[in-house]
């Protein structure tokens, strides 16, 4: 069964450093999402992406964040200058055309020191 994959599974970085989180959505899906979950808290929406542009973004998704679909298979989330409060699990999700269900990847656990 096709699944969303994410790399790396864990990332440790120093405050102020740039990180890029990578996702490979399910191959025929057209809608892509990033969510994050701070330890012990609920899952929060960051951004949705369709047709090579951002469809929606939350208040969390400020100028430090950006997303890109650099090729036909990858979907990336970049945090330009990480802060301590960016420490969280980041989930990528994708959805097919005409389908309501979003399929989530296993997540990348980001720790900012």
């Amino acid at each position, binding site marked *: 069964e096709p699944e969303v994959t994410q790399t790396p599974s864990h990332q440790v970085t120093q405050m102020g450093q740039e990180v890029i989180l990578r996702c490979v959505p399910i191959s025929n899906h057209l809608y892509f999402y990033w969510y994050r979950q701070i330890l012990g808290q609920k*899952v929060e929406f960051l951004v949705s992406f369709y047709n090579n542009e951002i469809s929606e973004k*939350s208040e969390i998704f400020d100028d430090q964040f950006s997303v890109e679909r650099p090729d036909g298979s990858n979907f990336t989330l970049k945090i330009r200058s990480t802060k301590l409060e960016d420490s969280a699990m980041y989930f990528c999700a994708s959805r097919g055309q005409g389908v309501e*269900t979003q399929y989530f990847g296993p997540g990348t656990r980001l720790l900012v020191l």
Partner: protein
Amino acid sequence: SQQGEEDPQALSIQEGENATMNCSYKTSINNLQWYRQNSGRGLVHLILIRSNEREKHSGRLRVTLDTSKKSSSLLITASRAADTASYFCATENQAGTALIFGKGTTLSVSS
């Protein structure tokens, strides 16, 4: 906000018992979805119920939706130790471009 909010926050039961989790939300929805998360892992989609549906079944799962009360419930029948996980309800935002999750119910099933 449109968040789903679950209760109880935590639920501990014995194997074989039924587990019921509730979710409330605040605005009109197109659908409501339930997800499961094992500790430190990704989210697994369990079931989706549309706003014009009142009840849906999938295996040992039964979901109800009451749009007049803006609430939903997830029932897991004959629970197993493997059902131990956190369960989240999620509603789509009005633009249909994002899922808004509740805080979740942590279910612990002991054998």
